[in-house]
């Protein structure tokens, strides 16, 4: 079947099998390989992207289910050379070690801050429950999310 998506602002139309998962369309057919496949069982969150603005695990969404939707991957965040505030905060706070979970962590954070622009530390930890860091670098990740939220707050 034919699936048409708007990915990072660009139209992507592809012929896919009915069983094709969104993450495979993005990685293998749209050349957007930043989104990782980790556990493949909707536990780890490495495959998190935004579907119409809300975080989803793209290993557990059929490409067909996303037909007609707007998808944002981590490749779509930066404005040219300028990193998105969440990306910048992850760099500044050293919120990554091996980097495998980072695209998913960043997208889960963007979704969180859209829903709750000023979260408490506890709310950040709860909101990132669906994203696992195999280096267990959670403290710096939480610091980065709080820093990104504070950066966005009007002073």
């Amino acid at each position, binding site marked *: *079947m034919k699936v048409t998506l708007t990915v990072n602002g660009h139209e992507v139309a592809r012929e896919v*099998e*009915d*069983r*094709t*998962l969104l993450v*495979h369309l993005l990685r293998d057919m749209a050349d957007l390989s930043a989104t990782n496949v980790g556990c*493949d*069982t*909707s*536990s780890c*969150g490495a495959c*998190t992207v935004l*579907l119409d603005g*809300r*975080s*989803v*695990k793209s290993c*557990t*969404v*059929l490409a*067909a*289910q996303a*037909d007609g939707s707007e998808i944002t991957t981590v490749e779509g965040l930066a404005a040219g050379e300028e990193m998105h505030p969440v990306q910048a905060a992850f760099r500044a706070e050293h919120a990554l070690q091996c980097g495998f979970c980072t695209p998913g962590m960043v997208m*889960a954070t963007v*979704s*969180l801050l859209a829903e709750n622009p000023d979260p408490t530390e506890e709310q950040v930890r*709860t*909101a990132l*429950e*669906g*994203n696992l860091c195999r280096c267990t670098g959670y403290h710096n990740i939480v610091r980065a999310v709080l820093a990104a939220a504070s950066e966005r707050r009007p002073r």
Partner: protein
Amino acid sequence: MIPAPFTYKRAGSVEEALELAVDGGEEAKFLAGGHSLLPLMKLRLAVPETLIDIGRLRELSYISEHDGHISVGALTSHDTVARSDLLAAELPLLAYAAGQVGDPQVRHRGTIGGSLAHADPAADLPAVILALDATLVARGPSGSREIPVAAFFRDLFETALEPGEMITEIRVPKPRDPGWSFQKFTKRGIDWAIVGVAVQGGSVALVNMGSTPLRAGAVEREVAAGSLPGDAAAHAAEGTSAPDDLNGGRPYREHLARVLVRRGLEEARSRS
């Protein structure tokens, strides 16, 4: 991991979904958020020939207040249920428990009707709906009918739904006793409950203590007779058949049930 091949159909209305289900026969399944079904399909534990995507039926996503009850459309997402001001005021047990399902990504996709139809005894909402004495509205080829939740869960992943029938609405009576509690014991935040407990007034339901969500009848009788929470909770494991698995043996789960029921009854009492 990808699912075995199947044919994908998207329904534009409830009527069309029901027609597609008749065409698909026994090997067709409805697909809502897909967060229970797609993982099973990847593992080949479910191999439907046809998936009928009902996920876009906005007409089944709503929360509304009526005389004496609240109606929740079957395709209302866990996230929407968790954030509803109406539910926070009228059915805080349901709103709170929906916010404990999975993680934010899962709650964005998963739906209340999908969770009930899937009937996993380890899932949170089946026990909550059981404790709330809700009525499920189902539609099939021969029309609409109401199923009391007490008659809905038949066995592991088995419900009273007939082939081709789908849940359209969950009707929850407004509780007489406002005291409520939801207790969920997990190893990690995103896990299914090893044991969970839903309490509304004197109604107590258990997560993952048998092949279906269970009412803790012996506890409820003790509560009705005026027993203190600690005494009533001692009966929490009566009539259960908890699973034995890597997360815990049956005696451990029975112990957890007694502890969590006591905590649940105490918390509910503090809120009533």
